[in-house]
């Protein structure tokens, strides 16, 4: 067993992606992509707008199916289980692979009910159980200390950074194995961003995190692995420390050094 780039032992691939291609109508948006996402590590997806990184991210928990005209080819396996295929429930997939979006989107409910929402939908009715799970999720999202005395206040009264951590808590409450994050800090100020980045680092001890970011320094800071997408193609995938010091492909080099233009 070799040490990973963050000092943690290398874990096996949590998500195995093979020949994944996503079409919007007749137009190919991204692919074919082959990639192994290592468990309990952070993988960042970077690339210019329209490169297909967000489309790729959404295809990892079948979120693209909600978009009309979208079609996916190839396979994604989570711990060996295919997530695409006849008879596989996308809702069950999304329970194992949660997602956090660019804009925090709390429901117009109390802080507690935001986090409890997924649990209630999932059929958990015991209030004591829900309270425990809410506390655990809020603690994991590094929000508990700030909100424990006002759990019944509206979530809309929280700051932007707190709202985003609330959404992370909501995603964590149903105890997923993988957390997908689509530019989770792009609408936040630097301090709130630093909180989110620290949180991502902590979460990777337990969860597998895949994050899309426009901020290359953010990828360099938080990710153990980085994948560079360009024009719908996965150009390069490597350990972050390698990709940001000696990338293999000249397109990666041009993009990360700011030579595109």
């Amino acid at each position, binding site marked *: 067993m070799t040490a990973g780039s963050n000092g943690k032992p290398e874990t096996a691939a949590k998500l195995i992606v093979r020949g994944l291609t996503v079409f919007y109508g007749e137009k190919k948006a991204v692919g074919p992509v082959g990639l192994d996402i290592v468990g309990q590590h952070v993988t960042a997806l970077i690339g210019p707008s329209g490169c297909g990184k967000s489309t790729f991210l959404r295809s990892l928990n079948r979120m693209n199916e909600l978009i009309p005209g979208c079609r996916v080819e190839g396979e994604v396996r989570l711990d060996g289980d295919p997530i695409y295929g006849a008879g596989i429930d996308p809702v069950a997939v999304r329970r194992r692979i949660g997602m956090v979006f660019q804009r925090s989107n709390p429901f117009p409910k109390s802080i507690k009910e935001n986090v409890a929402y997924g649990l209630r939908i999932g059929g958990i009715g015991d209030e004591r159980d829900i309270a425990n799970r809410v506390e655990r999720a809020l603690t994991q999202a590094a929000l508990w200390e700030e909100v424990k005395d006002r759990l019944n206040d509206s979530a809309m009264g929280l700051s932007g950074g707190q709202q985003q951590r609330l959404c992370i808590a909501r995603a964590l409450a149903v105890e997923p194995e993988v957390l997908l994050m689509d530019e989770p800090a792009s609408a936040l100020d630097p301090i709130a961003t630093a909180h989110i980045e620290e949180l991502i680092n902590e979460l990777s001890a337990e969860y597998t995190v895949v994050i899309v970011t426009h901020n*290359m320094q953010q990828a360099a800071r938080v990710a153990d692995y980085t994948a560079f997408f360009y024009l719908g193609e996965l150009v390069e995938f490597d350990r972050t420390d390698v990709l940001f*010091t*000696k990338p293999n492909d000249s397109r990666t080099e*041009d993009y*990360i*050094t*700011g*030579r595109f*233009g």
Partner: protein
Amino acid sequence: MIRASHSREHTNREYEGELRRVREHLLLMGAKVEDIIHGSIRALTDRDSMLAEQMIAVDRKINQLEMEVDELCMQVLARRQPVASDLRFLTTALKLVTDLERIGDLGVNICERVLELNGEPPLKPYVDLPNMAREVQEMLHEALDAFVAGDIERAQRVIARDKNVDAYYTQIFRELLTYMMEDPRNIFRATRLQSIAKYLERIGDHATNLGELVVFMVKGKDIRHAGKLGDNS
């Protein structure tokens, strides 16, 4: 040939200009260092004390440039967060100036010995010492060219030449030893000449460092201390 100097320019032209300024400063510093080595050896062979004094003054300009390059690199690191080839270029630049500055100091040391020697009658006609100096100057010149062109092969040829310099040093040392054994009155001058040979040998080592840094800058592969640190691949 792999080139480190990017054919593509930065989208941000101000950033591009800052990197160019670092490069220009480095090259100016390199030219001054070449001057000082060339001048110090001519001061020795021509017994020209005035030239030796002039070269010592050039070193002050080199020291000034070293600080300017350091400052420029710090500014770019702080403001641009460079990555990949830009990061390797800047970290290389920071090390390159240290080697160049040391070479300048060794040039000054040569001049100081020359000034001492010029107060005495010549010990012997110089043959090996100017040849050794030429070898060292060429190494330095080639290393700087390799840096400009991002030329790994040229850098590696510089590294390979260091053994020639070492051979010259051994040869010169042995010869000076015979002079000293012949007549103790030769010792003052012979030890000065031996020091100069040692300075040149050290300059060869610094030129070798420059070559190794160029290889790192271009390939991202550290070839220093090869085989001396055990397996660090």
